[in-house]
């Protein structure tokens, strides 16, 4: 066996997002549930099905195209399924296969699902060609059971199943709905629309932070929720603010009276440091590309910080409303985004600012619907020329083309943002082409 990763918890939720058309739904479901049981029978793992919202393991069927998977399938035969390793949780089956149960024809869904769940739990491929985790499908077996190598692998990851747990399970007799202990830190629901911080990070990835978790926001949906410390080792959760500066490649995280600095996911030496020039418990932070400065926000005030120049905050904090017109005080999060706009987030809403740092009309809007791809309670009229959802990868030139209309002169004009609005520098009215 080969170990590729593991979940730090043993009580996992799962969700079946859709089913194959070649099997009656109850037969397909039974096959998938049995696939979980192969593993929970030999290791101290429990799997609880959820019917909506987020789940640790998500099973779905797609074909040659999928808006949610970068690896298309190849039609009947050849590649049957694939899965992500922990703690990602995606398990995909090729919908073009003839999925069957109880017959040697077609491809047995239960066995393939058990194999892919092996990956989702952290196992790689086995060299034993008769093992479940062998890469090639060995065909239907009426009395299928795990190979000793499969059992050894899963127990290397999660330990053996101790008898008392076995008794407990037998008492419960609920094969797939045992109790799930609450997480020490409850996983947030991105659809709550509440945030601790938002950051446009390296390579144009948009990160949302809430509690102990972080997830990416993309054009096609949300990435998996990771514990903050799983990505940025040594970083606590419940952050106050996060900001990435393309100028220095530094990512700064703020919490309480401390600041952490990372380059990508590696903490810079000497950090975290104590915050002593700005107030602790900041609300938000953003990088403004037009003057390449970092802005820190707290209450109704802001600090403008040049990362590479000696710090002189003698005139700070300054009133937010003097520079960012129409934004709320005490924002939860803020960021300059790929479309050239500045965004402020507070409670469940967000504000979009134009190049003159004034809130545009029609704002605030609902964060959950417009950023987190959550189903609206009411159908919100599509924002006029408004927030094209984040582009899938990197900069979406079409969005840039329609949204930015920025001519190089506007970008080249180095604004010293210290001037208050009304200052001629700030009153750049976009030219016809800009």
């Amino acid at each position: 066996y080969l170990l590729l990763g593991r979940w730090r918890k043993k009580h996992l939720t799962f969700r079946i997002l859709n089913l194959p058309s070649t099997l009656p739904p109850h037969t397909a479901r039974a096959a998938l549930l049995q696939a979980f049981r192969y593993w929970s029978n030999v290791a101290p793992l429990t799997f609880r099905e959820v019917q909506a919202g987020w789940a640790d393991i998500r099973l779905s069927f797609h074909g040659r195209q999928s808006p949610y998977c970068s690896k298309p399938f190849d039609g009947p035969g050849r590649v049957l399924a694939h899965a992500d390793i922990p703690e990602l949780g995606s398990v995909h089956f090729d919908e073009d296969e003839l999925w069957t149960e109880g017959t040697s024809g077609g491809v047995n869904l239960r066995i393939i699902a058990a194999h892919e769940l092996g990956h989702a739990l952290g196992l790689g491929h086995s060299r034993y060609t008769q093992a479940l985790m062998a890469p090639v499908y060995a065909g239907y077996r009426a009395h299928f059971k795990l190979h000793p190598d499969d059992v050894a692998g899963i127990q290397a990851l999660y330990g053996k199943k101790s008898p008392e747990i076995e008794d407990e399970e037998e008492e419960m007799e609920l094969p797939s709905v045992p109790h799930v202990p609450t997480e020490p830190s409850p996983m947030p629901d991105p659809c709550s629309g509440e945030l601790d911080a938002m950051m446009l990070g390296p390579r144009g990835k948009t990160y949302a932070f809430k509690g102990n978790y972080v997830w990416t926001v993309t054009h096609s949906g949300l990435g998996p929720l990771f514990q903050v410390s799983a990505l940025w080792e040594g970083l606590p959760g419940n952050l106050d603010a996060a900001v990435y500066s393309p100028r220095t490649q530094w990512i700064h995280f703020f919490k309480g009276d401390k600041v952490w600095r990372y380059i990508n996911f590696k903490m810079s030496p000497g950090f975290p440091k104590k915050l002593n020039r700005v107030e602790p418990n900041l609300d938000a932070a953003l990088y403004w590309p037009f003057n390449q400065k970092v802005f820190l926000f707290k209450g109704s005030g802001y600090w403008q910080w040049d990362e590479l120049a000696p710090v002189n905050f003698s005139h700070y904090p300054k009133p937010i409303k003097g520079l960012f017109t129409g934004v709320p005080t005490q924002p939860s999060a803020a960021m300059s985004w790929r479309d050239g706009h500045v965004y402020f987030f507070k409670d469940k809403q967000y504000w979009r600012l134009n190049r003159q740092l004034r809130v545009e009309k029609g704002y605030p809007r609902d964060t959950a619907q417009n950023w987190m791809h959550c189903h609206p309670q009411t159908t919100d009229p599509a924002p006029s020329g408004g927030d094209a959802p984040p582009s899938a990868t990197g900069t979406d030139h079409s969005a840039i083309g329609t949204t930015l209309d920025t001519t190089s002169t506007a970008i080249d004009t180095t604004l010293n943002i210290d001037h208050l609005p009304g200052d001629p520098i700030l009153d750049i009215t976009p030219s016809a082409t800009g």
Partner: protein
Amino acid sequence: WALGPAGKETAVDYLLQYGYLQKPLEGPDDFRAEDIMEALRTFQEASELPVSGQLDDATRARMRQPRCGLEDPFNQKTLK
């Protein structure tokens, strides 16, 4: 030459897709014959086939078998 013109493309794609051949980061796309033969031998051994380093019929048939989309960790060099 180990693969013959017909099989080269498919077999190399398979060996690449499943981790038997490591795509050189900077090098040219075409692989040395010895790399391909080593990859074939690794695949044949892991598939309990006669280990010849040649793309014979049994190897070709095995490559057509339905399988999982994840890579195989059987070539220690590419695994590292």
